[in-house]
């Protein structure tokens, strides 16, 4: 059986970005296959009664320090966008629309790096189509794709499933039924995959 890990994420989440930068290492060390599960973090928070860490100012300040430390450890860039959080619904619909397409890795990279490295506003439709174009997706095609009902439905279904399975934040990983929350649990995910 192929070892698989499900990765529930939202581009809006700093920790999702940091985790994403480490997925190649995860794949290399475990030979796992990543099942990409785009979800809407805001809807998960609302459904579970969770709140983003910055709603507590002291926690928000610390979390930034913590994420910067991890970015340094990983050797990756991290710059807080000038506007955060933003509504990433359209960007996440794009992730669903292109999930099984060859452009998907480039699309995910364009969105994560656009937001967390290059300060591109993922709520701005023009910015989104530009980033999609960088991933080799035509503007017209992209606009249509994120507006498709089946795409909207799938993103909602992913989000509902996440909540049903106990997800309360992002990123969240599943190896079988074992759930791991946070980019700082990658070593536990790797251990679990090596056991699986």
């Amino acid at each position, binding site marked *: 059986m192929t070892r698989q890990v499900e990765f529930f994420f939202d581009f809006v989440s700093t920790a999702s970005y940091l985790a994403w930068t480490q997925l190649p290492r995860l794949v290399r060390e475990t030979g796992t296959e990543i099942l990409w599960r785009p979800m809407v973090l805001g809807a998960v928070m609302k459904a*579970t*009664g*969770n709140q983003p860490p910055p*709603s*507590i*100012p*002291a*926690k928000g*300040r*610390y979390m930034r*320090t*913590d994420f910067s*430390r991890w970015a340094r450890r990983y050797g990756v860039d991290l710059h807080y966008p000038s506007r955060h959080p933003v509504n990433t619904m359209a960007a996440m619909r794009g992730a669903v629309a292109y999930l099984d397409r060859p452009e998907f890795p480039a699309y995910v990279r364009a969105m994560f790096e656009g937001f967390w490295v290059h300060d591109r506003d993922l709520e701005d439709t023009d910015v989104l189509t530009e980033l999609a174009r960088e991933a080799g997706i035509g503007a017209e095609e992209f606009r249509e794709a994120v507006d498709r009902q089946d795409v909207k439905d799938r993103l909602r279904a992913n989000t509902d499933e996440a*909540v049903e399975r*106990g*997800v*309360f*934040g992002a990123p969240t990983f599943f190896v079988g039924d074992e*759930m791991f*929350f946070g980019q*700082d*649990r990658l070593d*536990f995910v790797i251990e679990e995959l090596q056991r699986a």
Partner: protein
Amino acid sequence: MSKQVEFFFDVGSPASYLAWTQLPGIADAAGAAIVWKPMLLGGVFKATGNRSPVEVPAKGQYTHRDLVRHAERYQVPFQYNPHFPINTLLLMRGAEAYRDTPAFDAYLHVVFRAMWVEPRNLNDPEEVARTLEEAGFDAGEALEQAQSPRAKEGLKATTEEAVTRGVFGAPTFFVGEEMWFGQDRLDWIAAALRRA
């Protein structure tokens, strides 16, 4: 100045317990001293607007799983306390009273074990007294110490200091001005102590 790590904790916090099982070894290995900072987590939550993870049910369930995983990794006993949350005011005043005395280690040991290994209902003052007596403490004297103005004021001062320095949860560590939150940041603290 000699190397030191400040440890802000509350015995009612399971993550503080797990950190306590590991910190002395880490400090010893680095040749560092632990500066014990008993604080009232409830007071920190109130001052910062933070909440216990268990107030979001999905988060509470996962947090328990996560603590069990860490206990397994550390190879230490851990039982969730069914009486949680426990009002730790008296217990933490006791910790403050014993802080700079030879009985401090024994006090923390008996209270942490009663809270997270045995686990007992330490909401009940009689159970607290029994627990202390069994461990060789004179419970009457211990409770008197805990209710002394010195202990009350000391605990209040440390709790206020914590909030002033940006603490929002337990355990929290400082090496110099650098702050870490959580028992899952111990490797960062070990690294900081090696550098210090």
